[in-house]
């Protein structure tokens, strides 16, 4: 019973949502919008679970003096500070302490993490472009042509380089991407059908 009821709900909902895709009728739209609303409502109710989990883990780290427990103290202080300030009136207006923390602490930290990507790409590209075998050499050659074709110096070296770069992107690259996309589409449809038919049950924590 504990397993059958949720599976039945999933199967019926999945089947109805499949039918809904083919119907533009307002009743069908209403059903779809209600399903989305339910998703949001469930997501909101799950948030306290997440916060509880986070607080418990960080608190245990502090109590046990685990490796890096100082970071946990900062995480807890940050959480409760923002939570407290978020309850104050007009906290989202410009110039409030809440917004200052968001703009001058959170956004720069986030930008720092994102900017690391540039260096990581360089380091990953260096590893990928080592010409160890034939395939790696093809990757290296294609990458050099595409990179040169995207900057003015490529055209200055030879006018054919930008054309070749576009050809690589629009033909071999596009063909491979489409092949993966078609496979993904069928795979996703197959998984969805397995869920509707009750064959795939991993989403309920069972295999």
């Amino acid at each position: 019973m504990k397993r059958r009821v949720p599976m039945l709900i999933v199967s019926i909902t999945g089947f109805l949502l499949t039918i809904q895709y083919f119907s533009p009728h307002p009743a069908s739209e209403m059903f779809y919008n209600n399903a989305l609303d339910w998703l949001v409502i469930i997501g909101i109710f799950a948030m306290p679970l997440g916060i509880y989990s986070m607080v418990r883990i960080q608190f245990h780290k502090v109590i046990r003096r685990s490796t890096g427990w100082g970071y946990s103290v900062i995480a807890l202080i940050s959480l409760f500070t923002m939570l407290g300030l978020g309850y104050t009136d007009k906290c989202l207006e410009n110039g409030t302490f809440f917004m200052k923390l968001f703009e001058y602490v959170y956004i720069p930290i986030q930008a720092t993490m994102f900017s690391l990507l540039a260096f990581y790409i360089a380091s990953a590209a260096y590893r990928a472009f080592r010409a160890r075998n034939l395939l790696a050499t093809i990757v290296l050659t294609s990458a050099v042509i595409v990179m040169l074709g995207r900057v003015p110096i490529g055209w200055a070296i030879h006018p054919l380089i930008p054309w070749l770069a576009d050809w690589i992107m629009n033909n071999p690259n596009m063909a491979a991407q489409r092949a993966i996309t078609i496979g993904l589409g069928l795979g996703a449809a197959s998984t969805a059908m397995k869920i509707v038919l009750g064959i795939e049950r991993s989403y309920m924590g069972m295999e």
Partner: protein
Amino acid sequence: MQTSGYRQAFRILIIVMLWAATPAGSLGVEPEDAGTGLPVIPPMNLVAADTPNDNGNGITLRWDCPPGDDGSGAVISGYVVLRSENSREGYLETAVLGPGTAKYIDNGPAADPVTGEKIHFIRNKPYYYRVAARYASGYRAVSGASGPVQGRAQWFHDGKIPVLTATVLFFALVILYIQKARLQGSELYVRPIAGMKEIDNAIGRATEMGRPILYVLGLGSPEDIATIASYTILARVARKTAEYRTELIVPCNEPIVMTIAQETVRNAYMEAGHPDAYSDDMVFFVTSMQFAYVAAVNGLMLREKTATNCYFGKFYAESLLLSETGNIAGSIQVAGTDEVAQLPFFVTTCDYTLIGEELYAASAYLGRDPLLLGALKAQDFAKALVMILIVAGAVLMSFGIDWLLEIITVRM
């Protein structure tokens, strides 16, 4: 007196008949545009019809532009769409369109010129339409009325017939192959997936080194197919870590994903016969913010010195930040995602990568359940059909034959 009354009535009747016999297209028409010398002609052949395949909130209008309209605005500066609930009066402007326009779908409000009140389009209500051509010289030629027409909702979108056909066909294939797999058992051949095979070795390596395993479910929401596929692999990994008594760390980005992951790991530990080894601290929520999550997981990798990192699910810009950190830390890494743009990053930084649909095939590959294997076979068969259609379509289109394209085109 009575005779005079009949005469009066007869005269009124004649006037009404003459008025009704006046061609509708000639209403409000000036004989000639003083600026260009061209005759002032209203939009012709106005047809208002219910917009097909919609929710009833639209009426499609089509008309022929007057001969002077070349789209430049030199002769005709634009068109005004007028709507009324009555064929003869009460027409309100619903849209002002540019020159050269010959089609409009009306679904918006009309403004009352007196009160300024917006009168909304109402489904199933009969409306009449007229379209006025605005001449650059200032003349306004109004077409005859078209209607009454109602916006009606359809229960079935007939432009999606190709999708319905493909869905039914695919569904039938899945059922057929599942039945076949039931008869054959788990004898169906599935090609080896290197990444899947390597997971067991990676867990063994972590056990030997006495270091934890990190499992990242990505940034996807619980309804994403990639996240659902990831739970299956997580169950497999958790069962192995339970058997080997290896530490497992699952930091989550989404509270619902965390709840399901906790349930998955708990069940796996119970199935492995070690429910006591499970703790809710293994699967925990970090944050919903993308880069804050990356910082936390990267910190975990470097502090805990994880021996094996698994990334299965939906990943975006954080894919390289996570996997490159793991690479620098010297961990064995296995990844799989359905985000095509992130695959090159994983291929570059991870030891094994499940490309695209291999992630979805993982549940069948790991479980060896005939039902799951059957669905996988149906998927392969459908892929073969798609390949045949692509080749046939390319050949037919090369010879200028487009009926196949017509059949499979989805009209939204």
